[in-house]
Structure formats: C-alpha cells, structure tokens
C-alpha cells in the first residue's frame, strides 16, 4: 500500500499509532523533532498505578514501530495545501506529499518559573515533578541533598486550574503523580515527613484511590488541603512555605528540604506550530480542537488529519495509547473510503 501516512511526533502516541499501522500493512512516516523517540515518557522512571518501568514501555513501542520510516532531529518547515493532499517540507530537505497526517505532538510541561511565588529557578531546593522523575531515573540533581532530607513538600496544581497561570484546566495526571512520587520519596527517605498540598484530589483512574489510601495509611504522607501561597528561603537555605490549612481554617507554615512543584500540562509549542501551518483550530483550553469532544476526539475538523495523545488535552499514558490505536483505525478506515 503506497499511501503516505505522516505521524508528527515520535512520543508514545505516535509510536503506538505507527506500530498499529505497520500491523495493518501501511508504511507510516514518523517525524520527530528531537534526537530520540518516546517523548516525555522516555525520561520518566516508573508509571502509576503499578510502578511499571517507563523504559520498558517505550522500548516496546519503539521496537514495534521500528519498521516505520523515522526522521529524527527533523522539524516541519512548512506545509502546502494541494488540491486534495498536503505537501510537507521537512527541515532535512525532504518533501512528502500525503493525504493523511496524524498529529501526535503532545504537550509541554508548564514552566514552573512562571509561578514566581514558588521560586522555581530562584531557590535551590525547589524542583518540579519532571526534575524529580529524572532524578529517580538516576540523573544527579544538585538540588536534592541525600544527606539532609527531613521534610519534603509537594505542591499540586502548579500551572493547572489557575487562571493567573493562564490555564484554568485540570492537568489530570499531577494528583496521582504527586501521590506516586511522594511514596517514592518516602521509600528513599523513610524518616522524612512528606507533605502534599492540594486543592482537590482527583483520583479518577483505575486503582488511583488504592494508591492514595496506600500513601496515607502505609506511608503516612500528610495531605494538607490548601494551595501554597508563597515560598521563601530561610537563613539555612531551606525553603519555608506558607499555605492555608483550609480544613482547620488556619495559616500553616513549614520548613522543607525539598519542594516539588507538580507542573501541569499545557499545549506544546510544537503543537501550536504545526497547527498554525496546516492550519488547525485550537480549543478554549489552548490544546488542539477535535472534531467533537465526545465521539470525534481523534479526528480534526480537517479531512485526513487525525490526533492522538496529549495534543488535544492532558492525557494519561493508557489514554494516549488508546487514542493512538483509535486513530490508527480511523486512518485505516479513511484510506479504505469507509470514513
């Protein structure tokens, strides 16, 4: 089958869709901006709720997609609309003519330094969920001092559900990620007090509630309902945070050795760029707009252009994978004139 299928983005959604399309007998083309496949998940350590290693997942997806035509370190320079197809010019000089594009450009992690009051990039002991995940993955981080870890705090909803951060949407995965990472911190530092400062806990997924109860009951993680208002540094160089303990209606203050900001998901610049070139509309949440948010999530309003994964909004890993499979099927139906 000679039909060109261009998958924009080699993250887990792109890889999974490519793998499925290969099984259906197509030869998809993956265009990846960076030098490696797997997107964000490739740099993560373990995945909730079963603590399965992220590497295994990504390796499996990469292996399954290895038959695809993959361009690494490649960006799209421009897209021309032809009569009933598109001409895609790549940064490596290759041009592809296709009727079908699958946008799997994913998300960006919210830039936590935009929440100035939390002092990310200013205080030595303030990191993000992504930094912590990298550290779990074995990468050294000077901000994490193994010898003195008596108190660790997690701030939920950093850059999510926050109009001031220009993202009033929930990023969906941060609650459970915070619970996961809090447990992992307690496992590494059993003597440390671990606090989670949350506004709401959204334990929507399979086994998430069990995970949460586990964190409370067995790991003694202290969940404090209240958003951290400000972070300062004291004379010892530790971070002091202030919040309201809304359940007791009193201000609360605590000194921490490490503060982890649960940065949310925002539409990636790459998504916006690709969307601008085709062009594709964006929804009110800043992510790409689907044809329909109930039954057409993986379809764009433009014929032949499909979505999968977090380019249309925050998704968990299994959701992104399920969408990738759905999108692959939609592509197949489209090629066979059934869509």
């Amino acid at each position, binding site marked *: 089958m000679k039909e060109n299928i261009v998958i924009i983005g080699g993250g887990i959604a792109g890889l999974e869709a490519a793998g499925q399309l290969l099984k259906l007998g197509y030869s998809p083309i993956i265009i990846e901006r960076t030098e490696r496949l797997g997107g964000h998940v490739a740099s993560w350590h373990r995945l909730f709720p079963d603590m399965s290693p992220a590497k295994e997942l990504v390796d499996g997806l990469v292996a399954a997609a290895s038959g695809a035509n993959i361009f690494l370190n490649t960006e799209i320079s421009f897209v021309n609309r032809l009569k009933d197809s598109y001409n895609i010019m790549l940064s490596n000089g290759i041009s592809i003519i296709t009727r079908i594009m699958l946008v799997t450009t994913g998300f960006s992690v919210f830039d936590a330094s935009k929440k100035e009051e939390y002092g990310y990039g200013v205080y030595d002991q303030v990191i993000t969920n992504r930094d912590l995940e990298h550290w779990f993955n074995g990468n050294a981080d000077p901000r994490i001092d193994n010898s003195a870890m008596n108190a660790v705090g997690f701030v939920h909803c950093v850059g999510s559900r926050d109009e001031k951060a220009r993202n009033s949407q929930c990023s969906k995965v941060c609650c459970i990620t915070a619970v996961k990472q809090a447990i992992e911190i307690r496992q590494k530092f059993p003597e440390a007090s671990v606090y989670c400062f949350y506004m709401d806990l959204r334990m929507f997924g399979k086994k998430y509630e069990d995970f949460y109860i586990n964190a409370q009951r067995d790991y003694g993680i202290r*969940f404090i309902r209240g958003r951290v208002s400000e972070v300062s540094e004291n004379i010892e160089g530790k971070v002091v945070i202030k919040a309201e303990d809304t359940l*007791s209606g009193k201000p*609360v203050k605590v000194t921490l050795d490490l503060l982890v900001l649960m940065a949310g998901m925002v539409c990636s610049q790459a998504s916006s760029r690709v969307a601008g070139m085709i062009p594709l509309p964006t929804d009110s949440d800043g992510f790409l707009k689907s044809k329909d948010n109930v039954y057409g999530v993986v379809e764009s309003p433009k014929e032949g252009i499909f979505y999968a994964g977090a380019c249309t909004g925050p998704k968990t890993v299994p959701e992104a994978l399920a969408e990738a499979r759905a999108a692959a099927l939609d592509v197949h139906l489209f090629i066979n004139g059934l869509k």
Partner: protein
Amino acid sequence: MDFGFRISPSSAINLDNVDLTLFERLHEMEPDVYKCMACGSCSATCPASVYSGMSIRKVILCLQRGREKEAFRMMKNCMLCGKCTMVCPRGINTRHLILSISKLYSETK
C-alpha cells in the same frame, strides 16, 4: 510599658514546631488514622456535635497540627455511639481511634 495594645499571638500553625511523636505512635496503633479524607460525614452524623461541635475529623486534624487542647475539648463529648464508624467511607474504626487517643494522650502531658 503599656500602650493599650500589644502583639497578638500568631494564629498560624508552624508545622516545624509541632511535635508529632505521640501522633506517630497513634498511627502505629491505628494505621487508619491517616486515611481520613475530611469528608465530614462523621461530624455531620455525630449526636454530640449538635451540642459541642465534636468532630472526629477535626480531632484527627487538631492532633496533627499540635492543637491537642482543642481536640480534647471536643473529644470529651463523644458518647462512643458508633455512628461515625457506620458512616465513614474510608472504613476508619473511629470508636477504637477515640479510645486509643484517650489512652495515649493526656491533658497534663
């Protein structure tokens, strides 16, 4: 010198200064104590809350925030009727928790 006004004590809870040794012991005796997610069912159903503001949810919270006195004041009104245990969505054995607190903590310290 009296100026007719003075520094008012801070209402803020400084978790650095809260001694949780006893609470940790309580957690060992009653691992479920941390399971409370502050839904408030217990307080809503508590017959003593009508008269005294007793709320086992608040008691658990106060003990974690170093406000034991407030917790004891509330707990004195508990009749151990068990309604809170019946309604707790997290299955916390609140009655035994109350007895354990009464055993472990002391007003005089």
